[in-house]
């Protein structure tokens, strides 16, 4: 099987418009949460989110750097974030100017969990208030999930596989895993892979709040709301943004002297076959997904030093994932660290698995693991597990595991290691 390595990273997050700014803020224990600025949420059960900040903010995002004005107007923000992250990743890999021959073997697998919800909401209001003749001609292709991959392929002339995963909050991890397999199976030499989301709009916040998924007890202290594993956690905080990595066949990367961040060595996926929103009561789906990734990686549990958990800060989900991780790791639990960066940037839904995989890669690069913020009073089951409370921790990091679980009972796990 052909080996697959990571040679480029790109990101838009609530803590930065690029990878390094976000990582610096994550390691400094900053939170991207605040009162929702985009619309008046004062009458909503949940009034907070981790929004991507405007360009003039200390760690804001400037869409104009990589996305032309016309496209910004025509498409939903998740697509704009995705194009930015993909552009950054290609430049980082030194592949933003490939020959036609190379571009025939380069593709995209950038998905989203929900897609263009803000635009669906606003154009529905146009339809209701002004009639069908006022609906934007860009409505459909400005909201479709595969249009990040579409737009990026057009911008950079990438003629290889053009794909988009839609598996709710597992999207980003599945995208990377599936794309890695496309390279391993010789469908392509280079793949841009990741996920993006922007669903912080009235119907998005209302919908997730009605599903009892969002935190509602910390509206007056937004930075305290995302608190995975803490006894007072009460739901997730919605985030937004995008993460994209450049995956490349190992020999292809080596021949051109590319900087190699990590190798993707294990990918596991499973279905809970249990409930649309609640995880399996014994965490069996997550367990099987991690177990499959481990088996594929050829590593032993003792080799895995860091787990970036799904850890959304929901009462049920955190507990079940922790139980599954403890069951899998057994005695090896005492030597690994596990944290949830959702405590800092919220839950990026379809972007989560990609952004968090990038944090895993940076943990490998910098030999430091990011913290779980607000873990003031760990729940009882946390005993014996290093959940990296409050502050980042320097330690040996040889291999990393990222978990992402989604509505519908869909699970993905990725294992990467330094090369």
């Amino acid at each position: 099987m052909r080996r697959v390595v990571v040679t480029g990273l790109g990101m838009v997050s609530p803590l930065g418009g690029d990878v390094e700014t976000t990582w610096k803020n994550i390691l400094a224990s900053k939170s991207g949460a605040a009162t929702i600025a985009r619309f008046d949420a004062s009458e909503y059960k949940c009034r907070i989110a981790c929004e991507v900040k405007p360009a003039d903010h200390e760690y804001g995002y400037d869409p104009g750097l990589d996305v032309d004005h016309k496209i910004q107007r025509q498409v939903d923000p998740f697509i704009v974030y995705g194009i930015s992250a993909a552009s950054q990743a290609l430049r980082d890999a030194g592949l933003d100017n490939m020959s036609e021959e190379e571009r025939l073997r380069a593709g995209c697998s950038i998905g989203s969990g929900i897609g263009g919800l803000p635009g669906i909401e606003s154009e529905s209001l146009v339809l209701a208030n002004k009639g069908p003749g006022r609906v934007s001609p860009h409505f459909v292709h400005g909201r479709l999930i595969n249009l990040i991959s579409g737009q990026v392929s057009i911008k950079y002339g990438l003629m290889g596989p053009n794909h988009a995963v839609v598996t709710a909050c597992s999207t980003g991890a599945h995208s990377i895993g599936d794309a890695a397999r496309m390279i391993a199976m010789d469908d392509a030499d280079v793949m841009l892979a990741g996920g993006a989301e922007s669903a912080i709009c009235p119907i998005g916040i209302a919908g997730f709040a009605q599903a009892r998924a969002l935190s509602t007890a910390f509206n007056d202290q937004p930075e305290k709301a995302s608190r995975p594993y803490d006894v007072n956690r009460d739901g997730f905080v919605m985030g937004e943004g995008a993460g994209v990595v450049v995956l490349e066949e190992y020999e292809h990367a080596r021949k051109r002297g590319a900087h190699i961040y990590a190798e993707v060595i294990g990918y596991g996926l499973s279905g809970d076959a249990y409930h649309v929103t609640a995880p399996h009561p014994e965490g069996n789906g997550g367990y099987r997904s991690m177990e499959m990734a481990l088996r594929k990686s050829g590593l032993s549990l003792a080799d895995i030093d860091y787990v970036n958990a799904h850890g959304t800060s929901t009462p049920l989900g955190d507990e079940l994932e922790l139980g599954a991780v403890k069951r899998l790791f057994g005695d090896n639990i005492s030597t690994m660290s596990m944290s949830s960066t959702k405590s800092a940037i919220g839950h990026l839904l379809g972007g989560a698995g990609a952004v968090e995989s990038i944090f895993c890669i940076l943990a490998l690069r910098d030999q430091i693991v990011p913290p779980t913020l607000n873990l003031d009073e760990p729940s009882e089951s946390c005993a014996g597990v290093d959940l990296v409370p409050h502050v980042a921790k320097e330690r040996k990091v040889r291999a990393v595991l990222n978990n992402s679980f989604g509505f519908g009972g869909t699970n993905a796990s990725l294992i990467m290691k330094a090369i």
Partner: protein
Amino acid sequence: MSETADRVKKIVVEHLGVEAEKVTEDASFIDDLGADSLDIVELVMAFEEEFGVEIPDDAAEKIATVKDAIDYIDSKQ
């Protein structure tokens, strides 16, 4: 320059993201300003909103340049 021309040009600049100097009356939306057929549908909608006129599809198909748009709108006001 007429008031209609000013308002038309402003809409074109905003919607197509082009520099104002390029939006001359002779400029073709597709050949000179980088628009595609869907951009023209959107521009026509924006003209209808701005000027309170209705531009039927057969008339919209004949609007190829900035001047075509200005003339059509002036003829309906």
